């Protein structure tokens, strides 16, 4: 689904990532960890085409990103659900409209979407918050709304960047359960986090591979987890 072959990324200040090789197989569950500033977010952005590698080859769903124009990347992104730490909503639209946004922009909005939307909002526990504006939501509600938005197009891959960064332990466990449930439905999940307790809790429930970015390279984390 997502294949990195010796991928490097550098910016004007210097090299950030180098020699990264990885294959995200369908239905797999991955954690990506590493210290702050190690490049976890950059890695995720490479995985959904928000950034283009400066070296190596990156294939998204079998297509080389180097050969894709911006519109092709946008279309590919509909197959990837992204959950950001800061969630990123359109603050002038109610939560329900924000969650339905991928349907709107992809031209898939339809009169019968209401039932699916309500079902999804109930699943993430936001059925009573449909009309609220994003600034009115708590941290946990925002994360769940972001997750619901990431799922509305039924993507094959879920990429989550510190999804539990702004929520308490109980809420982080709830989010983790949702992500594990999605993985059991066959979705590929990659979660970037520095929360080791979360990783340990997940490994008790699901077979997850833990990757670590250190010194600009990607390593498989050891048995210490």
């Amino acid at each position: 689904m997502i294949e990195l072959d010796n991928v490097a990324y550098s910016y004007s200040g210097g090299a950030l990532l180098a020699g990264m090789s990885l294959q995200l197989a369908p239905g797999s569950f991955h954690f990506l960890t590493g210290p702050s500033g190690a490049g976890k977010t950059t890695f995720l952005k490479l995985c959904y085409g928000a950034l283009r590698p400066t070296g190596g080859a990156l294939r998204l769903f079998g297509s080389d990103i180097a050969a894709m124009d911006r519109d092709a990347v946008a279309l590919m992104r509909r197959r990837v659900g992204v959950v950001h730490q800061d969630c990123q909503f359109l603050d002038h639209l109610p939560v329900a409209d924000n969650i339905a946004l991928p349907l709107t922009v992809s031209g898939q909005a339809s009169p019968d979407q209401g039932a699916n939307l309500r079902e999804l909002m109930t699943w993430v526990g936001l059925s009573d918050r449909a009309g609220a504006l994003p600034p009115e939501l708590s941290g946990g509600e925002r994360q769940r709304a972001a997750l619901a938005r990431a799922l509305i197009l039924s993507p094959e891959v879920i990429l989550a960047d510190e999804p539990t960064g702004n929520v308490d332990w109980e809420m982080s466990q709830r989010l983790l359960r949702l992500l594990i449930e999605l993985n059991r439905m066959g979705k590929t999940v990659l979660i970037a986090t520095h929360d080791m307790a979360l990783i340990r809790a997940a490994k008790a429930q699901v077979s997850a591979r833990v990757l670590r970015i250190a010194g600009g390279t990607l390593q498989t984390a050891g048995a210490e987890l």
Partner: protein
Amino acid sequence: MSALLIRFGGLFTRDAAADRVVPPEGFTVRLTVFTAAAMAFLTVFALALSLAAGRLATTWGQELALASTLRISAPAGQQEAQTEAALRVLSQTPGVASARALTDEEQKALLEPWFGPGLPIESLPVPRLIEIVETEDGFDGEGLRLRLQAEVPGAVLDEHTRWRRPLVAAASRLRLLGWVSIALIGAATGAMVTLAANAALAANRKVIEVLRLVGATDGYIAGAFVRRFTLRTFTGAAAGMLAGMLAILFMPGGGEAGGFLTGLRFQSWHWLLPLLVPPLAALVAYAATRIAARRVLESLT
């Protein structure tokens, strides 16, 4: 061009729900509507000016073409004889289709705008005027002048074509100036909409990031802004056009005594021309916003 027009037409049929992704408020709303209204108002006036100048050029050209005047300024006792002599010379001049002396009543009517009615023209040393109509080929003005000098010493030939040409040229230039003004107003509208669109796009950078995150193509994002600015411009231009047409409508009509300024009103089907202003302004806004959006989206990559 046809593809552009098809896309432009699509603005009015596309699902308006998609527009909601861009926040509705902002100073650019008022700026765009006001600018479009002001520009449309000015366009209607420039159009009226241009059409009026065109009419003036045509009228002057038609009225003065192939016409000349001979003025007989002779002592009271000789005027009648010199008039007859002049008419005789004119009847023998090749290129003169007809010539006739104006009557006292006609001369009085010509002087009335300056001296008022009841002018005792008989008691005043007013020169006699002879109206000459030329053939298509015209006459030899210099030859006629020399002959008149010899035979009718009090005659002064006034060839209208001599002073008609610069007047017609001036009116034509004025008409051109009107069209240039319309073009400049269109360009200024485009520039203003571009500035407003750039400001809106910059202010909505976060919105663009979110839309990209959820898989919106550049065309979709640009379309949301383009549709908004196009419709705002159309609305403003329609208001400005109506105001301009009302202003023109309430200007005094050009009567017989009317001058150039009082003849600014549109005539007959020309009243339909201002209706083109809103769609043309919207087309300018569409192109300007589309180019601006593409440029900004490219820079945000």
